[in-house]
């Protein structure tokens, strides 16, 4: 074929066609190529055509082209090509070698095909498929949780309800849309709602798991106790993708607990009453015997001194017996006092943080019932103290119970209770702070006296026992009104058994 015919043919082809020399320089570019790129044949010839390739793609394109030239194989590569109006569009660059009769590469020829629209369409399709997959996935998820024999919910990162399984819908008799308003539509018992909302809100805001108990309304309107546990699901970057929530009905357990706690309270009361009865009987008997002697002796003495039957020796002996009996009564009282003030201590090293945590664990459900929001601030590396663990826990328990009691009628502010430990010089300090009714300045001094109580139902024994316990540990106990907000803070400080530095070293 003559050159003119080949050129006409190449120009007529519906594509961007080119021919290059074996070293890669362009020898010929058809009209469509020049029209499309807006480059003249002179501008494009040689290596000039490169200027139409997107600068970002140019280097990788050249590397590929060099490799292709060396390999002498046909190939394809994708790159953006600048249109005459300056817009870059994606093209597929296809190239193939043309060999002469002796088998050497004489030329390279190629065609550039625009794939912009096809790719865009493909991408759109992919995007649609992806979103379909997401939908299908959530569908699968819902179906999967439907099959679980428990109450499962899935929440968005912000805590809003995204999906719940069939069991929740059946139990509550509410649709997913209705359940989204659980905070306002009476799904949770109004008494439990503030505490629930607080714990839940904190968990979502801080991205930490939560565990709580509340009463959930059944379809027939009856509220039953549930345990609720929520954990966040995170992606590889640590962002929360969703929350999984598991609800477990604990109505029976709760009833048993209530039974148990009532029984325990009754037992404690009986124990207290019977202890007091026992003590009273013992004291009464111990004091009453010499008292009987004293009364009878005194009467006898009077009879002996009566003028008609005067018996001075008898009266003297009787008076002496009276004195002996009085001494005996006074010894009884002294013995009692000694018994109560010098109780033997069981000494061991006590980690106060641990001891306090145990107390809090024991009183957790009691605190929740009182809608008390608990905060802890335990000092790390706190040295241990020497003493009676159970007695110290009794004191902490007493503080916590008093704090909760003091907030029983508080409704205009959070019933917050914070317990903290700190190292204060040679002493370890534990304090319990409440937002309760506080203490009147005039009663501050009497708080730790036996049988003094500001509570209507109090025995007035707890704090006085606490004081004797702390004193027997060589410590101090005190109470102050909070100066920045309502409520009071009860504290005790006891000497720690080793210098903090040594203790920390041994811990490390």
């Amino acid at each position, binding site marked *: 074929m003559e050159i003119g015919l080949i050129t006409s043919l190449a120009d007529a082809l519906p594509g961007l066609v080119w021919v290059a020399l074996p070293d890669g320089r362009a020898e010929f570019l058809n009209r469509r190529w020049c029209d499309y790129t807006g480059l003249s044949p002179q501008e494009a010839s040689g290596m000039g055509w490169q200027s139409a390739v997107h600068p970002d793609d140019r280097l990788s394109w050249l590397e590929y082209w060099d490799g292709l030239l060396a390999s002498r194989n046909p190939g394809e590569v994708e790159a953006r090509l600048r249109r005459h109006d300056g817009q870059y569009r994606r093209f597929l660059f296809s190239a193939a070698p043309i060999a002469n009769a002796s088998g050497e590469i004489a030329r390279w020829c190629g065609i550039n095909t625009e794939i912009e629209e096809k790719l865009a369409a493909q991408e759109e399709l992919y995007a649609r498929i992806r979103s379909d997959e997401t939908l299908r996935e959530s569908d699968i998820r819902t179906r999967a949780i439907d099959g679980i024999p428990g109450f499962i919910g899935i929440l968005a990162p912000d805590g809003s309800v995204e999906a719940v399984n069939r069991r929740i819908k059946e139990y509550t008799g509410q649709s997913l849309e209705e359940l989204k308003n659980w905070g306002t539509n009476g799904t949770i018992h109004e008494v439990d709602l503030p505490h629930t909302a607080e714990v839940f809100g904190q968990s979502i805001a801080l991205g930490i798991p939560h565990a709580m108990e509340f009463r959930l309304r059944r379809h027939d309107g009856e509220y039953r106790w549930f345990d609720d546990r929520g954990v966040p699901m995170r992606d590889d970057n640590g962002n929360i993708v969703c929350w999984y929530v598991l609800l477990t009905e604990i109505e029976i357990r709760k009833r048993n607990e209530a039974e148990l706690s009532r029984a325990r309270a009754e037992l404690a009361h009986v124990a207290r009453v019977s202890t007091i009865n026992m003590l009273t009987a013992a004291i009464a008997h111990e004091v009453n*015997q010499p008292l009987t002697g004293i009364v*009878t002796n005194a009467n006898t003495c009077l009879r002996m001194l009566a003028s008609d039957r005067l018996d001075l020796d008898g009266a003297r002996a009787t008076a002496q017996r009276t004195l002996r009996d009085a001494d005996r009564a006074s010894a009884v009282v002294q013995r009692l006092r000694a018994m109560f003030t010098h109780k033997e201590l069981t000494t061991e090293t006590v980690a106060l943080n641990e001891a306090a945590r145990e107390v809090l664990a024991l009183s957790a459900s009691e605190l929740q019932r009182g809608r008390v929001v608990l905060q802890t601030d335990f000092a790390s590396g706190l040295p241990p103290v020497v003493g009676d663990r159970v007695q110290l826990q009794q004191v902490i328990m007493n503080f916590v119970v008093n704090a909760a009691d003091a907030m029983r009628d508080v409704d205009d502010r959070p019933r917050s209770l914070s317990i903290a430990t700190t190292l204060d010089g040679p002493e370890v300090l534990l304090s319990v702070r409440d937002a309760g009714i506080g203490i009147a300045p005039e009663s501050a001094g009497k708080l730790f006296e036996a049988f003094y109580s500001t509570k209507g139902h109090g025995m007035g024994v707890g704090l006085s026992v606490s004081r004797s316990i702390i004193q027997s540990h060589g410590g101090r106990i005190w109470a102050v009104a909070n100066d920045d907000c309502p409520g009071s803070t009860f504290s005790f400080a006891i000497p720690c058994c080793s210098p903090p530095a040594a203790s920390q070293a041994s811990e490390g």
Partner: protein
Amino acid sequence: MSQQTSIVFIVDDDISVRESLEALIRHEGLNVEAFESAEAFLARPRPVIPGCLILDVFLPQLSGLDLQQHIAADRTSMPIIFLTGHGDVPSTVRAMKAGAAEFLTKPFDDEVLLAAIRNAIARSGVALDEEAELRALRERFVSLSRREREVMTLVVRGLLNKQVGGKLGITEITVKAHRGRVMEKMHAKTFADLVNMGLRLSIAPDART
């Protein structure tokens, strides 16, 4: 009954109570014997003069109530005055049911105690007299011949001489003779006396038989 021939026993393990009681009662001119335990009291030979027992409810080992049960059967002539530290209702009820004369709470009023003692001694005297009388009655009954006892047993049950004769296979005249001797030996002035004696000796008729 003279005070010199009576005796007051005290059983209380508490020295203050025991000694003060002893002094009070002795000053009233009564004989007193005090013991620390129920066991020590039981070891002493039984007195045959009127008396009473002042007993602490809560004694170690053998308690006051146990002691009461122990002596109730054979010492009806010794009324018991209980002392207790505090109003123990179940003990009081048990003691009173078992025939306690008094139940006093320590410390007690000396006048109340002394009145209770005097009252108890008087009751003891009466009981002793009755005991002595019954003992004499039994001796007289034992002194009867076998035939006389048979006749007495039947007549106090209300049988006629003729019926007694029929039962024993003897004549009515013989029955009358035996009956006269029985009245004489038993020191019965009238037939009614004899029936009463029969009642006390427990050979008397039960009204229904």
